[in-house]
């Protein structure tokens, strides 16, 4: 059956939705506001003249627009989202309800602290849970996202080093690391030195020892690493780092694999950010907001940034300024008090699971990933074998000489109703396919996924290349020309008349 052309361009429930600017009726508004009283203004003549260019739409038109846009998105609510290193798990709706309690969402950050004791307590309580789960004594709560947490952690480390008169210039980063790691190190004023992986997908210990000297400020290691493997030499690595007088930074993006089962503090880690939008189920929201609290060892705690919470008897106090601190905070990294709304969601999630449930989270996440490895390992190609942790890495060896690339394979998965896995990352294997099912997928869903991937792999090996190159066919848009988008960037709408005049 071929799909008929339609007069409207819509295809049943799949609608073509113009931009808001193309739906403009000048003078229309979706909000009823009274005409402002005429006053003698206090703007000093610095007034805006002319039109801004914002389109006018009524409320029903606005609601329809965004509803139709929403229907063009894949989401974890709608299906499995096995993006490796992203931890796309179910986002409980209780969290959303709690974050919207007027007693939380309606707080102004600068209202007197005496009137926001419950909120300050909540920040402290979230920090306490994170501290116990990681076995680390201090938590800097204010970083806005994972990468911001990395930067904050490194700033804390650099401050601690400089406080002992020990300026160092290099940070060691394994080549399998997230791109944010080297970028954060550079933003903190460090030079980055890349450490290769060994044939087992772990840090090459010899190369690491060779690079380690008294000029190294920190090692930034992801553990479990981005190959989905636990760095089994981690204690030895930590000892070497400390012997060299450096600090051990851990990228906590993959904490979901070990939460409740392993405390990073017991591994000799000094500093680790936690992505609340990964392990602790706060929604990704199409790219944020995130939240990236940083847990710190004893040696680093005095240097952590403001604000932080202290408890004084029955009162909770936010230390907001470096001047009022008894310690040596290096400064401030974000306006106000951090991503408070995300703390509520994370605490709601942690309390729901509790210490027993969180342990089960890690176990089921690891079990699900190993199940994929077991059921797909013979049809795909797993470079490092098992067991894996919460995510499983395949390379594109199984696609060799098929004419199908990892990207084509991913696009074919989209037509099958699944979001693809992470592709071409980590960089240590060729054509990487990194799958992270998370603990919130059922066995039934995993079995469907496994059947789907196996059927596609068989199809690729059978030489059905057109099928893959043409994919996806069943989506609101087919493959988009990213090269053209970058060559002549069009980053905003312009009125047709202006466009013609240009």
């Amino acid at each position, binding site marked *: 059956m071929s799909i008929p052309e339609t007069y409207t361009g819509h295809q049943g429930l799949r609608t073509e939705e113009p931009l808001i600017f193309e739906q403009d009726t000048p003078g229309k508004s979706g909000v009823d506001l009274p005409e402002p009283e005429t006053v003698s203004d206090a703007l000093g003549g610095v007034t805006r003249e002319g039109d*801004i260019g914002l389109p006018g739409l009524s409320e029903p038109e606005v609601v329809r627009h965004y509803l139709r846009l929403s229907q063009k998105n894949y989401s974890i609510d709608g299906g499995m989202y096995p993006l490796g290193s992203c931890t796309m798990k179910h986002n409980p709706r209780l969290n959303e309800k709690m974050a919207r309690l007027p007693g939380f969402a309606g707080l102004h950050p600068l209202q007197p602290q005496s009137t926001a004791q419950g909120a300050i307590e909540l920040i402290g309580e979230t920090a306490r849970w994170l501290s116990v789960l990681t076995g680390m004594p201090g938590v800097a709560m204010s970083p806005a996202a994972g990468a911001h947490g990395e*930067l904050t952690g490194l700033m804390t480390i650099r401050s601690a080093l400089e406080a002992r008169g020990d300026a160092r210039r290099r940070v060691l980063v394994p080549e399998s690391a997230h791109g944010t790691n080297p*970028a954060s190190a550079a933003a903190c004023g460090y030079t980055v030195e890349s450490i290769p992986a060994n044939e087992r997908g772990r840090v090459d210990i010899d190369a690491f020892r060779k690079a380690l000297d008294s000029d190294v400020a920190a090692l930034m290691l992801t553990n479990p690493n981005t190959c989905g493997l*636990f760095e089994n030499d981690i204690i030895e690595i930590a000892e070497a780092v400390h012997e060299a007088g450096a600090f051990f930074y851990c990228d906590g993006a993959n904490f979901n694999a070990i939460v*409740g089962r392993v405390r990073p503090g017991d591994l000799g880690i000094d500093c680790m950010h936690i992505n609340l939008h990964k392990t602790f189920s706060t929604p990704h929201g199409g790219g944020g907001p995130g939240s990236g609290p940083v847990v710190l060892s004893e040696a680093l705690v005095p240097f952590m940034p403001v604000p932080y919470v202290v408890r004084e008897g029955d009162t909770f106090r936010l230390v907001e300024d470096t001047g009022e601190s008894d310690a040596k905070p290096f*400064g401030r990294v974000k306006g106000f008090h951090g991503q408070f709304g995300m703390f509520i969601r994370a605490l709601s999630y942690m309390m729901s699971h509790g210490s027993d449930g969180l342990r089960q989270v890690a176990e089921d996440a690891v079990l699900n990933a190993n199940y994929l490895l077991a059921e797909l390992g013979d049809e795909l190609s797993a470079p490092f074998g098992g067991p894996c942790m919460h995510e499983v890495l395949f390379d594109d060896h199984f696609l060799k000489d098929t004419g199908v690339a990892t990207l084509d394979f991913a*696009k074919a998965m989209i037509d099958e109703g699944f979001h693809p896995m992470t592709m071409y990352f980590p960089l240590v294997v060729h054509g990487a396919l990194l799958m992270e099912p998370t603990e919130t997928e059922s066995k039934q869903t995993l079995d469907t996924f496994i059947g789907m991937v196996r059927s596609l792999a068989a199809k690729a090996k059978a030489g059905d290349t057109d099928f893959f190159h043409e994919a996806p066919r069943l989506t609101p848009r*087919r493959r988009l*020309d990213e090269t053209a988008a970058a060559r002549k960037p069009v980053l905003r709408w312009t009125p047709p008349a202006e466009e013609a005049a240009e």
Partner: protein
Amino acid sequence: MRYLPLTADDRREMLAAIGAASVDDLYRDVPKAARLDGPVDLPPHAGEMEVDRALSAMAAKNLPAAVAPSFLGAGIYRHHVPAAVDHLIQRGEFLTAYTPYQPEVSQGTLQYLFEFQTQVAMLTGSDVANASMYDGATSCAEAVMMACRITKRRKAVISGSLHPHYHDVTATSAKFFGVNLVSPGPDFAGTEDLAALIDGDTACVVVQNPDFFGRVRDFTALSEACQAAGALLVVVVTEMVSLGLIKSPGEMGADIVAAEGQSLGNAMNFGGPTVGVMTTRQKYLRQLPGRLVGETADADGRRGYVLTLSTREQHIRRDKATSNICTNSGLCALAFTIHLTLLGEVGFKRLAGLNHAAAVKLAGRLTGIEGVELLNDTYFNEFTLKLAKPAADVVEDLAGKGVFAGVPVSRLLPNAEGVENLLLVAVTETNTAEEMDRLVSGLEEVLR
């Protein structure tokens, strides 16, 4: 456990398929000494009702500024957010999507970000905007780093009328990245001469409009001074509703705009999450940090949207990237753009007008009080009062009566001299006549 679909039977079957005797086997790469054999010392799992009860009890200890008469501002503003906004952003397709790496199944997110970029560029009078930053303060810090990259200079002049948190966050980045910040110090008198501080090493001058003390400024002359010296002008906006009434930064010659977008669509949330905004000139596009959405066509020639120019970004360029930012504020940007779409040209300008009219009215009433002096010649919806008593005490007193009179300047500048009696008062469309009455009578009482 309600969030975990696997049953005990599933787990057994899966372990058998894997060939592992127990889940402990799967953790065998973890050094023995670091394996916990039981739950950590935290409470066990709890049902939805119990969690709701515990967190609601915590929330009930607070007196939210959203409910009480409130004149708090200083970077976060109480505005009415139409009901449709929060409803729409909670659609699972928006709320629970990831960054739009697969454009074929992310056109919803990509199109609204393209619309967001367009609206932001229009409001600020800029060529291009990115798809959001964490917040206004981090956006300001990134703007300074960006200016340093563009000019290859390492000095930034920071206005003493910049929000102190923005100053502090920028100072943190500057300290570690090796940028020299020069600031004349808190400028509550409005007399600083920033142009005099510009020299051949200056990458940028950072100013705020309306400034931290509420004054409306025209930086056209400063922009010319910057241009003459080869420096860039960075304009910070913490109250974007003001752009419905006052001249845009672009019209004043801003090279980079760093703003806080919380005022549109977003609750106050005790200060976060909010939405950082960043714009620049077309010619500096490749030095912008953060995500950018661009228009293109699909294999069938139909218009569509993709993330673009990602060679600026950390996942490609690693330590050579323009920034380390990855996750930004997608959902807060969605709230912003929906609110602005609901308002439209007419509604947005009217909203700005209502805010200003309310401020003029309240300022007039407050200056009639004995012991209150208005420091501003100009303002939009926020101004600075000099009180006869320390502002922090007055605020505490009035908070005891259930009224939030404003933000004492000393809360944000605890070490500055001469600010003890200064109070920032913000007023928006949400403040009723009765709330203003309560503020006026409250101030009269405590200042008596």
